[in-house]
């Protein structure tokens, strides 16, 4: 068996996530999101399994996508890298924020305690963006004006968008339907999701502490101390901006140092948020 790469696993997990997303979508009602999520788990035959598959493969997709980016970044470094590849890198990298938004919107769509709070915070953060804030909110979220009616199609389009950008770039370069990766990802998913359910936090009218999705915890912690524009928009955008610059800057050491310091800082505040009890 050939060794399976991060890139192949990225495609495999995204494919399983999209397929399981369609299965879950048949039972999802955007007007009663939390009831839908509970019904899928409790009433639908094998519903908990399919929701678990959708939830966990989406997590796996984003994690292996980030690993895939760092695994291949050396190819676009320096003057020897082809110009076309450098240009593609800066464009295809948009898959990362799109993938994270797809994952994030999935939390909001189940509309449990975590989802409600995360969605409300995200909408307020969008509105803090100078000039374009209201437009971005109207396009991507608009919870206060339109409930989940806007977010639901955006969630689906974000997943499909990742697939389209990914296949567009890779189709002529590598075999994206890599058999071993699909078999490995499918077996791991079936074994894991048969046992582990997707989480669901029952909303409470008098909650004392709500923690956001794991990748949002650092931002949630930073929002306690800093201005929302800095903590919620500028700080999270730093690694993406730096990664986009890698092909175009000669001294990549400085860029990697920035990413390393950022990752250490973000991990630290995430740990603080995890340990927080009030």
């Amino acid at each position, binding site marked *: 068996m050939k060794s399976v790469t991060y890139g192949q696993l990225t495609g495999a997990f995204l494919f399983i996530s999209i397929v399981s997303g369609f299965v879950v979508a048949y039972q999802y009602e955007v007007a009663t999101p939390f009831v839908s999520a509970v019904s899928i788990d409790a009433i639908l035959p094998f519903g908990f399994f399919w929701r678990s598959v959708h939830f966990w493969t989406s997590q796996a997709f984003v994690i292996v996508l980030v690993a895939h980016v760092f695994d291949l970044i050396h190819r676009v470094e320096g003057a020897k890298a082809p110009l076309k590849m450098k240009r593609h890198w800066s464009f295809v990298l948009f898959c990362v924020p799109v993938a994270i938004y797809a994952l994030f919107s999935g939390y909001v769509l189940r509309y449990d305690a975590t989802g409600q*709070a995360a969605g*409300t*915070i995200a909408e307020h*953060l969008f509105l803090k963006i100078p000039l374009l804030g209201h437009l971005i909110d109207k396009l991507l979220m608009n919870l206060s004006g339109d409930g989940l009616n806007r977010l639901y199609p955006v969630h689906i389009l974000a997943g499909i968008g990742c697939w389209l950008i990914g296949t567009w770039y890779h189709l002529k370069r590598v075999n994206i339907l890599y058999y071993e990766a699909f078999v490995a990802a499918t077996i791991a998913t079936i074994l894991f999701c048969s046992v582990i359910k997707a989480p669901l936090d029952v909303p409470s009218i008098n909650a004392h502490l*709500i923690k*956001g999705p794991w990748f949002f915890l650092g931002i949630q912690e930073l*929002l306690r101390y800093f201005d*929302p524009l800095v903590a919620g928009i500028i700080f999270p955008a730093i690694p993406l901006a730096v990664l986009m610059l890698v092909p175009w800057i000669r001294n990549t050491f400085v860029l990697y140092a920035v990413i390393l310091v950022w990752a250490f800082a973000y991990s630290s505040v995430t740990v603080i948020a995890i340990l927080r009890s009030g």
Partner: protein
Amino acid sequence: MEPEFVLIVTATGPLAISRTCTHLGCKVSFIKEESMFLCPCHQSRFDKVGKYISGPAKKDLVRFKVTSLENNEGYVVYIPR
């Protein structure tokens, strides 16, 4: 306590205090033991009439206009949209 506001009847009349945190919009909870509002997202605190105490919110909770119905039949709370 309602999803949008908390209605408190004081000696000077009814108060309808918005449950939307002035920081980033999370729904604040009322902590009975400490007679205060607490935001579960970033732990901003407000006293029992919605005045800011601590945390990142910095502003008081919004108060909605509230009127009493005749013969003590209840209250009408006006939520601006």
